[in-house]
């Protein structure tokens, strides 16, 4: 009931903002649905930075509307409402919005939908994602170099391919430095709950991890690392301010170029459904400045990042041994994108059961 009412309030707000909009042909109304708060300083924050950049770049040609804190299970109403309110293009920025987005898209064939991090498309639905696993390979190498206990703690949200691929890439990066590296995984079953993320970090540190990695959205875990004199990596945003002594680096998402390009496509009438998957080469996935690291580790990380950027190194270079012992991938070749986008297995060396 709480979520329901929250959404109702958020919608009322959004509708209030959008009232009285002109629907001139040379102006486009672009709308965003966020799973968290724009003030999370992580995932949603970065998407909203993209939205603000769009406003700045396109000026009068665009009107933007966003609804934040939309529960995944309850998102269909929010998306449909935006479609009814005259949004020409709607970005839905969480994996769990996939089915609701497709459902609404069927009812509104003239509205363009863009779903982040999913894998299903339709004539008016594009998916866009970023190769976060490229960044995770780099931080895996750093973690393996820097950990004294040889164990990292990994806080994750939900067992979806993007997250699983992140864990695997991290582990492959770590194993390239230390083949015996261990990772302890905690599923928090939430994208955003600072308290819970902090609890998970505390538990992981108490169980022998000395470096924390997260695939949840708040800065809480890194703050725990700072307090306990341990280390970690920022997620989605550069979180150095929260952990000046603890953060080694951060994987920073930059959606701005993509948003500007897609909204321009709508303005020019050249929008087409596609599956966009940019990574470090395109500047969607970035590595924040290295801090608290010795020079040789920085050098190694910089070289790895450069190699990934230029395409010399693929994080999933075959052959890769799965947890169950089977081998995938051709020797010396990267796994095909489809295999990564649908990844539902762990690499060998991960001591955890993948939740189904």
């Amino acid at each position: 009931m709480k979520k329901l009412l929250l959404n109702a309030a958020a919608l009322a707000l959004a509708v209030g903002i959008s009232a009285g909009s002109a629907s001139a042909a040379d102006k486009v109304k672009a709308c965003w649905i966020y799973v968290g708060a724009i003030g999370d300083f992580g995932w949603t924050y970065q998407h909203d930075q993209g939205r603000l950049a769009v406003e700045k770049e396109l000026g009068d040609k665009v009107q933007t509307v966003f609804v934040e804190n939309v529960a995944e299970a309850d998102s269909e109403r929010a998306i449909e409402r935006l479609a009814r309110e005259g949004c020409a293009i709607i970005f839905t920025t969480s994996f769990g919005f996939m089915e609701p987005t497709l459902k609404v898209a069927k009812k509104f064939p003239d509205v363009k939908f863009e779903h982040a991090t999913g894998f299903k498309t339709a004539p008016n639905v594009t998916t866009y994602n970023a190769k976060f696993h490229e960044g995770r390979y780099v931080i895996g190498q750093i973690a393996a170099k820097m950990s004294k206990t040889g164990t990292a703690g990994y806080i994750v949200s939900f067992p979806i391919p993007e997250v699983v691929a992140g864990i695997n890439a991290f582990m492959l990066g770590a194993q390239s430095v230390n083949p015996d590296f261990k990772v302890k995984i905690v599923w928090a079953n939430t994208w955003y709950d600072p308290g819970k993320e902090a609890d998970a970090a505390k538990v992981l540190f108490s169980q022998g991890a000395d470096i924390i990695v997260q695939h949840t959205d708040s800065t809480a875990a890194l703050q725990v690392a700072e307090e306990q004199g341990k280390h970690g990596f920022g997620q989605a945003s550069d979180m150095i301010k929260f952990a000046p002594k603890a953060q080694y680096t951060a994987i920073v998402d930059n959606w701005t170029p993509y948003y500007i390009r897609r909204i321009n496509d709508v303005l020019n009438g050249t929008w087409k459904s596609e599956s966009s998957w940019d990574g470090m080469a395109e500047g969607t996935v970035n590595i924040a400045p290295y801090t608290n690291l010795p020079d040789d580790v920085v050098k190694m990380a910089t070289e790895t990042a450069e190699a990934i950027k230029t395409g010399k190194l693929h994080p999933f270079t075959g052959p890769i041994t799965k947890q169950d012992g089977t081998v995938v991938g051709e020797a010396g070749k990267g796994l095909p994108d489809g295999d990564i986008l649908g990844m539902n297995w762990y690499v060998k060396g991960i001591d955890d059961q993948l939740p189904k």
Partner: protein
Amino acid sequence: MDVWFAVFLTIVTAATPLLLAATGELVVERSGVLNLGVEGMMVMGAVAGFGAAFLSGNPYLGVIAAIFAGMAMALLFGFLTLSLVTNQVATGLSLTLLGLGLSGLLGESFVGEPGVRLPKWLGIDMLIPLSFILTAVVAFVLFRTKAGLIIRAVGDSHSSAHALGYRVIWVRYGCVLFGGACAGLAGGYLSLVYTPQWVENMTAGRGWIALALVVFASWLPWRVAIGAYLFGAISILSFVVQTRGWSIPPQFLNSLPYLGTILALVVISASRRLTRGNAPASLGQPFVPDR
């Protein structure tokens, strides 16, 4: 630090905000008022606590500001439901919405700022013992003093209390304000101790868990404490189990705190002995003296 001591401390930190907020709400409900706005008061406490500590550099000022922010929200709730006799359920829900929205607005400039921590001794901050003192005081006042008798009388039968000459509305105002202070303090605990930062919606539903705990504890202070620690312990231990690599689905583990609470609720409400006479009979009913 010993491994299990660290786990224990994590449990205590997870339980304390729940205990603080639930103890306050218990007093409110004992006086016959149902305030569903705990989440809203809590999140306002969190933003005010963070703001005051951040701007002044003094975490103790943050604690005081958190208490006052919770009380300000409670005063608004009291004015609406007690003086203007609005529907308590609807007003409480609106209070939560107001708190979440307003705190986001007020806290906009605090996002991304590192917070000020409340000092700790051996991993224990001062609010942890305080939460137990609070529980003891509430238990004592409610069941061992005349003031407590009056509060319970007002909650059980406001007409009778009124006929005996007690100022029903003023007693309820007092309790509602006390509940607001506790909820605000619980929010301050989040932004000053638990995760010393301000992010929108950082209470993440803890106010609702506190509300549920009051019912689960059948309106008894020490049971609230047990409930808060049970909830905290199950949440943290489910993480520990995960790090041990046992093959229990994490989705199940993560639902355990809720399942455990529901189970306890069912067991308690099934037993007459445990619930008898505890639920305030006038809970949620508005009082208008001349009716």
